[in-house]
């Protein structure tokens, strides 16, 4: 479970996150929905210990929740462009496994499991240079989950992907959820959130303006659809269809 309370973060004089609190349960997919610049990526970066919060508390799983401990417990895919082109897909994944301290005897098995889980067998021994966006995303996801984390964070993971890749990713996320993982992902695409998420957190100007399942959100905004609710909650005019 991921629990965030009254998170605040400024970059100089610019407030990126002003007041963010929510809970993402295990065995569920929680979507952070917001416009560009709403504070979604900063919130994810704070949760996985990449940035230090100015105020607030973050709990990822039970026990101690230092940034380095959070990085150990979380598998995060914040950017699927950053692969090492001269390494093969398998080497990219194994590198992150080693950085997570997976001992060599079980590393090979873990990497092979991830390769099979993501359907990367055909390209596992190829260097990453020249991979399609979908293939790069899968390798980046494999890297993020090689240590079998109980919490998975994804930042707009379907950006730039074709339809089959989007469907493949959704299937992978559903499978991880069914295995009990806590999945948190940000998006500004309403269809994606509707198709995938059990819970939704709407962020606007660095603040949580609503959270709950789709029906809860619509009820809170007094709107019939999630699209209308999103527009109403983020202070935009709802255009009657």
């Amino acid at each position, binding site marked *: 479970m991921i629990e965030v309370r009254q998170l605040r973060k400024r*970059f100089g004089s610019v407030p990126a996150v002003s007041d963010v609190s929510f809970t993402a349960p295990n065995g569920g997919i929680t979507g952070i929905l917001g416009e560009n610049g709403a504070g979604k990526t900063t919130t994810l*970066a704070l949760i*996985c210990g*990449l*940035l*230090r919060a100015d105020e607030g508390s973050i709990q990822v799983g039970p026990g101690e929740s230092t940034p*380095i*401990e959070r*990085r*150990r417990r*979380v598998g*995060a895919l*914040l*950017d699927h*462009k*950053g*692969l*090492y*082109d*001269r*390494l093969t897909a398998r*080497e990219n994944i194994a*590198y*992150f496994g*080693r*950085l*997570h*301290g997976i001992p060599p005897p079980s590393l090979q098995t873990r990497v092979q499991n991830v390769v099979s889980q993501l359907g990367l067998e055909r390209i596992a021994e190829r260097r990453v240079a020249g991979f399609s966006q979908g293939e790069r995303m899968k390798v*980046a996801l494999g*890297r*993020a989950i090689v240590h079998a984390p109980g919490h998975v964070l994804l930042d707009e993971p379907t950006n730039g992907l074709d339809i089959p890749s989007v469907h493949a990713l959704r299937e992978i996320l559903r499978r991880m959820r069914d295995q009990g993982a806590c999945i948190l992902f940000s998006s500004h695409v309403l269809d994606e959130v509707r198709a995938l998420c059990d819970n939704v957190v709407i962020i606007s100007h660095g603040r949580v303006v609503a959270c709950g399942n789709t029906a809860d959100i619509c009820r809170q905004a007094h709107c019939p659809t999630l699209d209308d609710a999103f527009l109403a909650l983020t202070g935009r005019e709802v255009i009657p269809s």
Partner: protein
Amino acid sequence: MSRTFVVARKEIRDHARDLRSLVSSAMMALMGPGVVLLVSLSDRAPGQDGARVLLGMLSVFALVSAFAGAIDIAMDSTAGERERRSLLPLLLNPIPRSDVIVGKWIAVTAFALVALALNSLGVVAVLAWAAPFLLVTRAQQIVVWVVLGLVPLAALGAAVNLFVAVLCRTTKEAHTALRFLAFLPMLVGMFLVFFPSWTGRAWFLLPIVGQQTLIAVREPSAPVVQGAILALVTLVASVLPLVAASRVLNRDDILSA
């Protein structure tokens, strides 16, 4: 395996596959001996004084080779990581950022040492051709100069280059900055070749000046003690840019593209 060495191993493996960069680094390392060989072939540097000039020229190129012999990997492993956006996923791993920097430094130093070894082979080959008596009379001094002077300088150069490159957002930006930095040992080395009176004992503790002093002094025995002290000072000095680079890596803005 320590995670610092995991980073180092990955950087070495990754960069070893960059053939163009390897060829370019090898050419840079052999450029000095090549130029000096041409000078010796032109027969404009005959006799003992000429041989000393040749050694002076070789020493300057060796300084540059040790200090800046691995700037390609320094750029690729820092500014390059930011540019291709692989730094963010790397920092998501449960490893202190100081360990990331030290891992990269080990890799950059390894490549700098290979460049230095290549350069040293070139130096020996040129001296064997153009001034064989120097190889006989100053063999010990040359060994002390390389082992206690240039090897630690490679470690310092790797640390300084990493620090400068980690401040840059793109490899192009880093390339410009590091090329300027490579002039530092060249300028200091050339100055000391043309004004050898400055290679006095008061300066020998200063990296680069000290290395040049080790090869410039003409004493009956090799300056082992002086070299050992200089090696220690140079290695300790490497810590400062590494600490500074770790601090840069801990800044929030390091994650912005």
